[in-house]
């Protein structure tokens, strides 16, 4: 399944040539839907998969009912005088560590009919290894031969020659960040007719209404906490959409303080003992980053108790360099604001997701309109930060993975 490429072995080029010259499948071809359905089913029914919540979430995302919704979204893109067709060969560079994102990128591209080459990082998490062996098993089946012959998953050490060769085969290249990767791969040429989609480093925030948190009874509070925990901790707070700044919105300072106390006290109780973020080396990393923030003029107050989880630093304003200083690992910047517009003023195009709790839709629409330039690409309730959507960072992937052919004849 996983093709390990290196320059000493020239045979991989031949194996690849066969795949990229296959005919293209129809968008949402039955064999694709069936394959994804079986993948989803296999994961959801396997109890050992519960160790990997991201894979469970992915399997959930791949259920037929959800893929049907995606198909409807796709159908809406087609107009009377345009036909959507696959682009051809799409080359995906998965990020080193948000393990499962390559699946979403691959699946959406596969659904609209493309042949796919996916480059995985050399250091892969255990869930990817589990997933790869599962994919391998499924793709051995005769009924999925069409997919197998149109999919290549590769891995290799940083090697410009290999990247250049793969790039020469594709009609579209997708680079899942961060900035340094985008810069390096972008400098490697594409065929003149090929196009590219890149995902740079992003930063994400959560906003909570202090009053709404204070009103919560125990049960809905627990639900909010679990949702926040999933958003922030699944990818060790390192996914682009994991909240790193929490903005507390309230008219009165003492109400904000009370809401924070209720929230963080509750959160601490639901963090499992075996959380990877409780490993001492991670604790020291978190403490070091918190201390770094504490040296900045905009720092107000830090709650750092030993290397314990989480660490928090209250700041007077969010400054550009604070985004790059963040190291994940369970560290939260906090901002107190009288209204959402105080947060809006501080956002930049670096900011991707805003997860929210306790605001009316009209307030949020107002917020989006008042936010500067092209900041914030999505606003979702707390608990959905990591849900992958076919519209990501402002791109509609279904559209980008397709080419539109105009048939403008009466």
């Amino acid at each position, binding site marked *: 399944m996983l093709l390990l490429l290196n320059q000493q072995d020239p045979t991989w080029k031949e194996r690849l040539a066969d795949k990229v010259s296959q005919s293209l499948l129809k968008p949402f071809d039955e064999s694709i839907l069936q394959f994804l359905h079986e993948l989803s089913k296999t994961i959801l029914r396997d109890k050992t998969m519960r160790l990997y919540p991201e894979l469970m979430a992915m399997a959930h995302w791949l259920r037929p009912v959800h893929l049907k919704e995606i198909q409807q979204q796709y159908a809406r893109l087609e107009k009377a005088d345009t036909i959507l067709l696959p682009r051809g060969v799409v080359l995906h560079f998965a990020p080193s560590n948000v393990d499962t994102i390559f699946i979403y990128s691959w699946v959406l591209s596969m659904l609209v009919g493309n042949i796919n080459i996916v480059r995985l990082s050399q250091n892969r998490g255990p869930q990817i290894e589990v997933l790869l062996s599962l994919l391998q098993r499924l793709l051995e089946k005769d009924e999925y031969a069409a997919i197998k012959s149109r999919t290549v998953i590769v891995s290799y050490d940083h090697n410009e020659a290999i990247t250049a060769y793969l790039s020469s085969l594709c009609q579209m290249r997708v680079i899942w960040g961060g900035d340094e990767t985008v810069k390096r791969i972008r400098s490697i040429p594409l065929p003149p007719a090929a196009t590219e989609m890149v995902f740079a480093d992003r930063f994400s925030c959560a906003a909570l209404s202090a009053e709404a948190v204070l009103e919560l009874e125990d049960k809905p509070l627990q639900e909010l906490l679990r949702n926040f925990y999933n958003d922030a901790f699944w990818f060790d707070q390192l996914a682009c959409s994991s909240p790193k700044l929490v903005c507390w919105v309230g008219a009165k300072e003492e109400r904000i303080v009370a809401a924070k106390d209720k929230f963080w006290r509750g959160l601490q109780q639901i963090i499992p003992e075996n959380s990877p973020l409780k490993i001492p080396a991670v604790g020291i990393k978190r403490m070091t980053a918190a201390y*770094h923030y504490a040296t900045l003029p905009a720092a107000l107050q830090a709650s750092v108790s030993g290397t314990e989880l989480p660490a928090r630093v209250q700041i007077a304003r969010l400054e550009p360099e604070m985004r790059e200083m963040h190291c994940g690992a369970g560290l939260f910047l906090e901002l107190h604001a009288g209204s959402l517009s105080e947060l809006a003023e501080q956002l930049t195009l670096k900011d991707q997701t805003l997860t929210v709790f306790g605001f009316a839709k009209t307030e949020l629409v107002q917020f989006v309109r008042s936010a500067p330039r092209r900041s914030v690409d999505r606003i979702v309730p707390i608990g959905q930060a990591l849900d992958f959507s076919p519209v990501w960072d402002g791109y509609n992937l279904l559209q980008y993975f397709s080419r539109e052919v105009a048939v403008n004849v009466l």
Partner: protein
Amino acid sequence: MDVFFNHVYDLDQQKKRDYLLKELNQTIAWHYANSSPYQKLLDTLGLHKEEFNRLDELPMLPVQLFKLADLYTGPREQIIKVLTSSGTTSQQVSKIHLDRETSLYQTKALVSIVSSFIGSQRLPMIILDTKSVLSKRSSFNARGAGILGFSNFGRDHLYLLDDDYNIKWDELEQFRAKHQGEKILLFGFTFVIWKYVYQAVLAQNKTFDFGDSILFHGGGWKKLADEQVDNYKFNELLRKQLGIRSVHNYYGMVEQVGSIFMECEQGYMHAPSFSEVIIRDPVSLEVLPAGREGLVEVISVLPKSYPGNVLLTEDLGTVFGTDTCNCGRKGTFFSIKGRLPAAELRGCSDVYAN
């Protein structure tokens, strides 16, 4: 400060604590008043106090903070050099700002430690490294600083390795002939010695006898631990294969140059008068009693031009006692086990930036 340098291993613990506390209270107040990021840090964390009553109360900084923040105390013009930790270009390195005073204290500290082991006479010296480490003055790193610091204790220096890390056998023979019967001082970095001296000698099937000789080495065990070599075994192998009579590993870091913890004849690291070691629980950071393994906190009175007096390291160690080591030296004695086991975090992290 002179009381420390004059009594490097012979201050009673009670007296030592009083001296340290007094000096450190003054030093921390000095940093607080003259380094605005440090002042901001203590205020933000609520760690500022007019006076601290115990050494384990002093506000400690995680040592990696010096990789992230540019911390120095007093006017920038007073800084005469910036030390950096060794590391490849892609890694972040610590930046340690030194003024004349701190630099002088570092020298005095090292002299007081080393001369208590070899006396004050300069010995013929072999540096188990290549001279090219020193030539890149722009990137003046820990390795270069260590070599220069220790070079002061020797004369007629021989750099044993050429620029390609090969042993210069002919020059070594000449050196030995010239210094027949004299005590020889050797210095190097643990991993360099292991890889380019010990293993090279082994591969060429040579044994060697440096005669009456003493070796100081430091710089960490991370890579050696991967090869399953511990400190004891390393010292033993060097004695056997190279005939070095006495081998002393030391524990130290670029963030506190000068106050190194030298291994005694009994195999324990010793805190000299001007520094202290405290072991803490890796999660709660509570102080642990002797005999329990935990995170190592190092305290030194030397740094005046940067707020690095009290540092929480990422190393694990165990304190065995205070003032009672059989070697006769006073002070806290301990051992170092190595780094905290690292944990790789996941995330949208850059494939290339790592």
